[in-house]
């Protein structure tokens, strides 16, 4: 007699809904226009979000803890959904111009979102790896979908480097398994507390390889080399997706592994602080000299990786809360800024910074919105980017990384210079003909931008609206599961 295994469906529901969207896009793509699919997918994302809200505080788990819908997963999952929804809204307007307007785009996007959610919900290293691979493979395709040499080049680069990153990551998982004797986060966390000296070496080696593997995914220097090329070469809506959703998911994985499973393991934190220092210097210095606005935003994404990763150096309670807040803010502001680029650029190569001169007098609303995003990215109050930066500084500072906090503060000054230049150029009067795409302002894109700007402003003035949720220490104390 065949027996149906007992599987708890509830914690899988948010993922399954998104997967249903992906499957629907694959199948219905033959009969429905793409816009209809995008709208279906948007509805799916909303439904998934609703299901997450209903799971709040339930602590549901499936597959013996391999998949867990704890509050940390839900908070990170909601951030992922918001980023994905913003990507879809922008793609409604720009996919046609970017020559990626076919159902496969939506399908791939939704598969990728499925993968990101699996990472956020993961309870052991294998689940995390599966999610990571689903996300990565679909992202490779997304980056290549556009029919252009630049997209092909960037996609190939992404694929090759991403594959190396995955290989390193898998090797790291193997070593961690060797050291701790389990793949489950909770079991690893329990093991690291009582290690025999013989196992420490293997575990540290595994942790460092995992760090390198994740370093590729979140673009920590020196593993960041692919980022600027891929973000620039891919269609802007894809860059938006890669620099927000994919990065949030990779950080969710890092939170699970480093602040959860390996929190007590030696070695990785001191390596990570060096990587962060390098990232802050390289990312910010390179962004200073970019003439292309889209490329500058790509380097700014690298620089922000450095700031975000500061959160991992805090204690899980403080650092996790800081990251939980910052990741949402980062998603909102980066997505809104790239949405403006997507709307106004003439070609998918983006625009140069000089093209922004006088934008305020041609597209006042977009210019103000972009200025708000840039101010927030630079960390100027009253926009939420300030509190994001503040929180991660605090997390690292309080855990004893004072010199790194000082370095991060200095790096922020460089950041301010390159965010400020375009922001101020937009307000300078200009008599030369406009260099933007004339019909860029459309409702869905404007909606995305408005969502980002309003979110960044409201959460900056009343940070407690979101921080109140993520600050609960119970959420992040149980990152590894119970």
């Amino acid at each position, binding site marked *: 007699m065949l027996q149906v295994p007992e599987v708890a469906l509830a914690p899988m529901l948010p993922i399954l809904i998104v997967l249903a969207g992906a499957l629907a896009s694959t199948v219905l793509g033959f009969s429905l226009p793409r816009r209809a699919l995008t709208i279906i997918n948007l509805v799916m994302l909303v439904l998934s979000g609703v299901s997450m809200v209903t799971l709040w505080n339930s602590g549901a788990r499936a597959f013996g803890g391999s998949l867990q819908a704890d509050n940390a997963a839900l908070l990170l999952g909601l951030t992922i959904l918001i980023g994905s929804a913003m990507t879809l809204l922008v793609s409604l307007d720009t996919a046609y111009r970017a020559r990626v307007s076919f159902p496969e785009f939506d399908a791939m996007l939704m598969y990728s979102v499925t993968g990101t959610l699996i990472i956020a919900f993961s309870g052991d290293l294998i689940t995390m790896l599966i999610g990571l691979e689903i996300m990565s493979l679909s992202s490779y395709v997304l980056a290549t979908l556009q029919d252009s040499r630049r997209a092909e080049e960037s996609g190939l680069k992404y694929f090759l480097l991403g594959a190396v990153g995955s290989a390193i990551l898998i090797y790291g998982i193997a070593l961690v398994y060797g050291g701790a004797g389990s793949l489950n986060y909770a079991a690893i966390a329990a093991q690291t507390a009582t290690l025999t000296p013989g196992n420490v070496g293997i575990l540290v080696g595994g942790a460092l390889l995992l760090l390198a593997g994740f370093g590729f995914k979140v673009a920590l220097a020196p593993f960041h080399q692919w980022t600027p090329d891929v973000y620039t070469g891919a269609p802007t809506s894809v860059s938006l997706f890669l620099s927000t959703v994919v990065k949030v998911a990779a950080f969710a994985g890092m939170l699970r592994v480093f602040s959860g499973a390996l929190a007590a393991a030696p070695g990785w934190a001191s390596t990570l602080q060096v990587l962060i220092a390098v990232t802050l210097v390289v990312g910010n210095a390179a962004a200073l000299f970019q003439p292309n606005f889209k490329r500058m935003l790509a380097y700014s994404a690298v620089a922000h990786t450095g700031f975000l990763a500061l959160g991992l150096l805090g204690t899980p309670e403080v650092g996790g809360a800081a990251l939980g807040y910052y990741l949402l803010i980062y998603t909102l502001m980066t997505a809104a800024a790239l949405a403006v680029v997507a709307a106004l650029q003439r070609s998918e190569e983006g625009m140069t910074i000089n093209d922004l001169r006088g934008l305020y007098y041609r597209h006042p609303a977009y210019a103000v919105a972009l200025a708000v995003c840039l101010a927030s990215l630079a960390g100027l*109050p009253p926009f939420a980017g300030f509190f994001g930066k503040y929180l991660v500084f*605090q997390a690292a500072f309080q855990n004893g990384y004072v010199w790194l*906090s000082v370095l991060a*503060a200095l790096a922020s000054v460089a950041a*301010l210079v390159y965010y*400020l*230049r375009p922001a101020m*150029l937009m307000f*300078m009067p200009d008599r030369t003909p406009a260099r933007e795409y004339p019909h860029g302002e459309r409702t869905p894109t404007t909606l995305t931008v408005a969502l980002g700007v309003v979110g960044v402003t409201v959460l900056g003035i009343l940070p407690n609206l979101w*921080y109140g949720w993520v600050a609960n220490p119970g959420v992040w104390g149980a990152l590894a599961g119970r």
Partner: protein
Amino acid sequence: MIHLMIFLPLLGSLLLFAVPPRWREEVAGFFAALTLGIGLLIWRGGGSELFSVGWVPALGITYSVALDGVSLALALVTAFMSLVAVLYAARRVSNPGTMLSLVLAMETGLIGIFAARDLVLFYVFFEDALLPALLMLAIYGKPNRMRALVKFAAYTLFGSLLMLLSIIGVKYYGGSPTFALADLVRNPVTGTAQTWLYLGFLAAMAVKLPLWPMHAWLPDFHEQNHDSGVPDVMGTLYKVGGYGIFRFGVTLFPDASEALRPVLMGLAAFTALYAAWIAFRQTDWKRLLAYAGLSHMGFVGLGVFSLNETATIGAMYLLAFQNVYTGALFLSVGMLQERIGSLHTRVGGVMTQAGALGGLSMALWFASIAVPGLAGFIGEFSVLLGAYQVQPWITAVATLSAIAAATYALTAFQTTFWQGRPLGSVRVWDVRGTEWLVLGLPLAVAIFFGVYSAPALNLIQPAVRGVLATLGGQ
């Protein structure tokens, strides 16, 4: 009441975009005047008590504001000069909607800085005042503004991010439950940590003061701003460094401020003299005024760093009224530029055709170089008197800058307003309409508080005593 005074200008600033363009000047003027009126009401009521609620409870950040003593005096000056700036901008700047809106937005940031009694809130207002200043420079600046802008922002942010780290550190090492000043004072940081944190805090304040060698942004900032001088008025109001050191620096880091006193006083005295020396060589009125302001700020620094009661009172007095007469001087330079089309100091003979403009400017300059009977004198004299008791030699050096001030001011005034009018130059019209108010009101304030200083001293003196009492008295 106090919240109204802080946020009313911002409300007005946002409303300006909603009202039809031809009413914008009136609406802006109304909001600026109303803010000043509320400020005066608060003054009459004897200041406003501390108001404190949690803002981000999870982080211990509170919304704590109070307007009394020094902060009320500075907030009143800010409201007053903002009104003057609005009056002048409405007439002088073509299509002034955006400018007026920025002036009002900045006013909120500035009053907020003076009202804040929570370190993070202080930081937030501190940065908020920066944004309109940058936008004014970007929208209305001169061709080389980008360099000035980046310089200004980079210096400011360099300091304020280090300050942010210090803020985090003060709470963390002191173990205070919140960032509210009262709580932080109750949980002081001691030892070397205090010195390091004070240095981080000073980094921001030294840029804003500005103190040599952090001053390089200042002349460019003023030179590249709009000719009218309106952004410069707001810029002079932005010099909150002296206040920040007085309110937060001395209270939170008493041992470190005493340990560093000779070094900082030396730097301040050097700044005063060095700036006066450079001002002497300037041929651009805006740069001249910028360096003159820098020299005054050296005096403010000297007073605050000396930790002496008389000197600190003088420094706060100077800080408040320097904004009035230097701001008005920037506006008078704007008027000069409007008439002769240049900011050069060697124009010659303007006095023959525009006597009132020359007279008003000269009177304001007298206030600026501390002629007795005008507000500048009381401030500078008290600073020197008090600082002399602490560090006689350093003070003697600073005194030289008072002589230098007379030299550069009178030379530049003489070559612009006296001397012969060049042949064939355009006819210059005299002060008219609201311009009388724009220059006359600040001058009246400078004279009033130069002759009768009691109302201002009554505000400043108890506050200074209260702060210095934490040091065990000097």
